[in-house]
């Protein structure tokens, strides 16, 4: 996700389009992306550590983006 305060032109366009379709009360739209990773078997803590490292090094640009890691069984 883009960090709070970082301009999101695409989110703004989506918000505008929702308004055009008659969806009232959409105060803000922020657009992000979901990246699904399938990992080899490992402990949950190790998986979380590895994916966090991936986010820091490549998957997210931490200058403008924040990220959350969710481990699903």
């Amino acid at each position, binding site marked *: 996700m883009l960090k709070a305060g*970082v*301009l999101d*032109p695409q989110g703004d366009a989506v918000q505008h389009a929702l308004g055009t379709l008659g969806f009232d009360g959409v105060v803000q739209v922020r657009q992000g992306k979901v990246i699904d990773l399938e990992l080899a078997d490992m402990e949950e803590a190790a998986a979380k550590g590895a994916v966090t490292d991936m986010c820091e090094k490549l998957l997210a*640009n931490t*200058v403008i983006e924040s990220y959350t890691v969710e481990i699903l069984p």
Partner: protein
Amino acid sequence: MKVAVVVFPGSNCDRDMAVALRAAGFEVAMVWHKEARLPERIDLVAIPGGFSFGDYLRCGAIAAKSPICQSVIAHAQRGGFVLGVCNGFQVLTETGLLPGALIRNSHLKFLCKDVDLKVQSTASSFTSGYQQGQVISLPIAHHDGNYRLDAEGVKRLQDQDRIAFTYQTNPNGSASDIAGVLSENKRILGLMPHPERAVEPAHGGIDGQAMFQGCINQLASA
């Protein structure tokens, strides 16, 4: 003076860049992204425009992690000169060699036109061939040229005379109209406009020539 032009899958301004650099007198080596090292005795590295790796993930993100980029980072950290144009600018922000990030244009359109730029700093080799405050015209061609940097970061750039160019009319929503930024040592320049597309009268303008000429003149005298 020897320059390496880095080529990624999807680069499309690499040969234009080479032509512009050769015209200014540089000896040009094209370097494929899988090379682990730059050629010997490189004075300047140029990262050209295009759509490296299809702009997948984020513009420039995959290129910034390529083998050659680790060598470019080492070159920069040794005080070497680096020029990044358009996608090359995006690559440089993704490596962290330049501050900020480039996101989707504020009006979401791909922009392809000539823009007027003001030369804000002549304190670099790249901008030494221009006059402070000079207005020049260069083409832009990008979808993600909206430069994002927080107010504190912009102030730091201003205080350190690191804003190289600003747009006269902001086309893409960039913070403080910024079109090009310099590293703290002024040896790395990243900019969205294309100087290499304005070096011959047939291009419709020659305002890009002074960048390559100024650069080689300063490097030769250093």
